[in-house]
């Protein structure tokens, strides 16, 4: 068992503070006692500092600007024949949905910015949307208009890129109820909207999906999807295929009943809804449901793998990415962790939580499913993105998908049958001895199973996993997948929980710290066919931004302390870095402006799950600024001297008065 190495001196020595309300008058005396005690501890800590520094090993204190290149950098097998279907093949200069394509590759064919001139990237212009919380979305660009969606209160903006200063064409304030603030487990974030049939469609935190006319900013339709007072919220970016919008709910922490629904693009009416737990009828499992592994075959497994009645509050919420394969007309998405998080309260496999579903896009009937972590005991959701790639694996061409799961295993799966081709750990983990490919079951390390009310130290990866929702990117030019991952462990104590509607139903008390190596984050290139890490860059703070690969053989990513970097796709060498105003958990994107110049845009605004490391010194304050970069900072309007913004610019943002909305 690896000796637990907790070298991070930033963790305060938190002796359990004995809440000693015993004698109010003796309070001051209590402090002298504690001063004595903490004096001793401080002396100990000082003595231990040289020891800790030594324990940091070769990596030494992290030099923020010159990140570490992993020792072994084998030359990637360029063009190993791994490709992807980039439908719907939007115009190269546009970015109409968060993942840019159905296969979730986030690959941009633009190549004007390349390894050569990346060093000359500068800020072209910025825009602040006036909201405080985690900015996880990517801007959309259609024609010469950029559309933005903000975290709570979920405002929407349209910026006219053709005019100087990119003025606001229109803004839309949906006014979601503030009750939803207290029901969102991990910051009132929103992962962005999608464009379809002239409408911008996105989800509000208080369980509504709205469609806004792209031209005028007027609300077209608004559909209520659930009851926010029961702890349900919506934060995912919808995916639009044809005339259907696919949306899911969040609330794994509050004991909701997880589902994915399809709405009609034009009317907003719900077409079908598939739950993640419950009877086959509720989960829309029909006769043609053929999971690859036998232990997932059976009737009403969504109910019989739960103690009686617990499947209705079993979560399996769908809060991240949906991908779509036009040839097979199948959509792929993951479900969240089972609820409550305390495993002893819910014996059984708890199907279909922490799993991936493949469903028919039109009817919603499930074709196959695979559970990444049966009877999950550490909150390893299965919601991370599934990038659809076509590989030749062991000599045979396979229609596959690559999925970096929260349980720190990278799954390469055959997306037609649900067979696990390979499953290798991509981050430091000690909960499992590996995935048995014959049965598809993980082999759990018995000591790592938490028991109620007993502290279990040094469980890796923690609840936020080896990698969380931040999407990876695939470059057909190198055949590699690039992702920001974590290097974190946790001490966990389970507290069995009562189900009280509208309150958290999880019960895991955690204290997170850096895994061996001392770094919290890492950006890596992964060869999906070989199942190996090609190169990786260690980062002191969490790497929780999306990733963007471009035809210019560049990969863009950001870090939680605000660095935004461009990296050579082949070698992993950092070509350019820029420090933004706040931490980056947004998704970088690139587009062609009206001046046919290539711009790279990314939101800075720390929040979301990255707040777990908020007690680290150097953690940035919150922010809300969109940064747009171009070569030498050139844009449509540089050099034109002082020019008045046209006074008759129509749109004036409907302000919310001095108090603003929290």
């Amino acid at each position: 068992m690896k000796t637990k190495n907790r070298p991070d001196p930033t963790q305060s020595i938190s002796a359990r503070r004995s809440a000693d309300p015993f004698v109010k008058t003796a309070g001051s005396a209590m402090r002298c006692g504690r001063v004595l005690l903490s004096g001793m501890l401080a002396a100990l800590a000082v003595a231990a500092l040289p020891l800790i520094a030594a324990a940091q090993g070769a990596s030494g204190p992290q030099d923020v600007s010159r990140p570490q290149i992993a020792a072994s950098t084998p030359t990637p097998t360029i063009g190993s024949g791994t490709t992807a279907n980039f439908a719907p093949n939007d115009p190269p200069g546009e970015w109409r949905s968060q993942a840019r394509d159905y296969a979730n590759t986030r690959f941009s064919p633009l190549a004007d910015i390349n390894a050569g001139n990346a060093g000359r990237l500068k800020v072209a212009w910025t825009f602040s949307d006036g909201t405080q919380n985690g900015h996880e979305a990517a801007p959309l660009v259609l024609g010469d208009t950029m559309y933005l969606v903000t975290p709570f209160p979920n405002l929407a903006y349209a910026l006219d890129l053709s005019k100087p200063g990119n003025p606001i064409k229109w803004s839309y304030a949906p006014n979601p109820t503030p009750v939803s603030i207290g029901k969102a487990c991990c910051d009132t974030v929103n992962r962005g909207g999608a464009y379809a049939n002239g409408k911008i469609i996105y989800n509000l935190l208080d369980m509504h999906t709205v469609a806004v006319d792209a031209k005028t900013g007027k609300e077209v339709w608004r559909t209520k999807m659930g009851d926010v007072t029961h702890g349900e919220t919506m934060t995912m970016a919808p995916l639009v295929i044809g005339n259907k919008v696919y949306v899911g709910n969040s609330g794994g922490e509050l004991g909701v009943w997880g589902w994915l629904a399809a709405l009609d693009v034009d009317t907003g009416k719900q077409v079908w809804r598939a739950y993640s737990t419950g009877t086959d009828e509720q989960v829309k499992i029909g006769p043609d449901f053929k999971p690859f592994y036998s232990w997932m075959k059976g009737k009403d497994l969504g109910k019989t793998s739960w103690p009686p009645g617990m499947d209705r509050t079993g979560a399996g919420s769908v809060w991240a990415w949906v991908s779509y394969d036009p040839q097979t007309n199948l959509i792929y998405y993951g479900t969240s962790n089972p609820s409550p998080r305390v495993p002893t309260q819910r014996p059984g496999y708890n199907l279909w939580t922490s799993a991936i579903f493949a469903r028919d896009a039109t009817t919603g009937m499930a074709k196959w499913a695979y559970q990444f972590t049966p009877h999950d005991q550490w909150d390893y959701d299965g919601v991370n993105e599934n990038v659809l790639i076509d590989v030749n694996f062991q000599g045979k061409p396979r229609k596959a998908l690559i999925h970096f799961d929260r349980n720190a295993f990278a799954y390469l799966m055959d997306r037609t049958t649900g067979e696990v081709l390979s499953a290798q750990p991509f981050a430091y983990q000690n909960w499992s001895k590996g995935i048995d490919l014959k049965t598809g079951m993980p082999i759990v390390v018995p000591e790592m199973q938490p028991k109620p009310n007993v502290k279990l130290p040094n469980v890796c990866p923690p609840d936020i996993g080896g990698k969380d929702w931040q999407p990876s990117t695939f470059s057909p030019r190198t055949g590699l997948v690039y992702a920001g991952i974590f290097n974190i462990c946790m001490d966990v104590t389970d507290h069995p929980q009562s189900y009280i509607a509208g309150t958290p139903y999880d019960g895991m008390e955690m204290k997170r710290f850096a895994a061996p190596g001392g770094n919290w984050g890492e950006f890596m290139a992964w060869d999906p066919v070989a199942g190996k890490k090609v190169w990786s860059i260690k980062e002191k703070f969490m790497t929780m931004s999306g990733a963007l690969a471009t035809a210019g053989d560049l990969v863009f990513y950001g870090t939680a302390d605000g660095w935004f970097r461009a990296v050579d796709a082949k070698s992993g060498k950092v070509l350019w870095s820029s420090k933004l105003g706040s931490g980056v958990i947004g998704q970088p994107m690139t587009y062609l402006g009206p001046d046919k110049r290539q711009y790279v845009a990314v939101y800075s605004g720390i929040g979301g799950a990255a707040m777990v490391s908020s007690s680290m010194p150097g953690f940035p304050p919150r922010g809300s600024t969109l940064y747009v970069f171009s070569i030498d900072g050139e844009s449509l309007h540089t050099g034109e001297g002082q020019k008045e913004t046209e006074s008759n610019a129509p749109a004036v943002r409907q302000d919310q008065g001095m108090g603003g909305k929290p």
Partner: protein
Amino acid sequence: MSPMERAAAALAVASVLALAACDHSRGGSTVGPPVQASNAPEAIISLPLGDIAGATPNAASVPNPYGNSPEAAQQGQALFVKMNCAGCHGYGAKGGMGPNLTDTYWRYGGTPVLIFKSIYEGRPQGMPAWNPSLPPEEIWKLVAYIESLGGAYQASQTQAAMQGDRVGDNVAPEVQRTLSASPSASGPQANGHGASTDSAQARPDAGGAVPTGAKP
């Protein structure tokens, strides 16, 4: 009696009195019923949340019926975990989905009775109302636990709590003269015993502060 004996006797009496002075609510591990049940919920609901238009808020103090009984605080801590409060406010009540309860920043009032109101009635940004799920007696135990964390104001410091005064704050002379009789200066210690204002958390609790969970 020789001087030495008198000293010994005095010491013995002093030590017994010192012990008697600490709380004498009945019972070892069992929490007796609240000392005075006069603060019925109905009376509490009518208390104002903030200041009163045109009048200085009355210094009516509604103390916690459990006083500082350690049993009540201990059972309050158990309730804090069992009733899922820790899920939002964090297992050390240092904040998570819900605000930090150990510092002296109280959006809806930091005196025990206002904390009782916030639990009893619920608050608009997602704090559910715990009446009737928890009877007043149990809510007062939760309040006793929150008081033991050091961030709460004393029951009689309604004025100080309203204006965010803390022990050790300087008070401009002009203000001193205009203050009503209520002792405004004393409130929870600024950053001494209990109130945690470590730097990383300095910023006020904007909506949805530090999440304990991993994702929405």
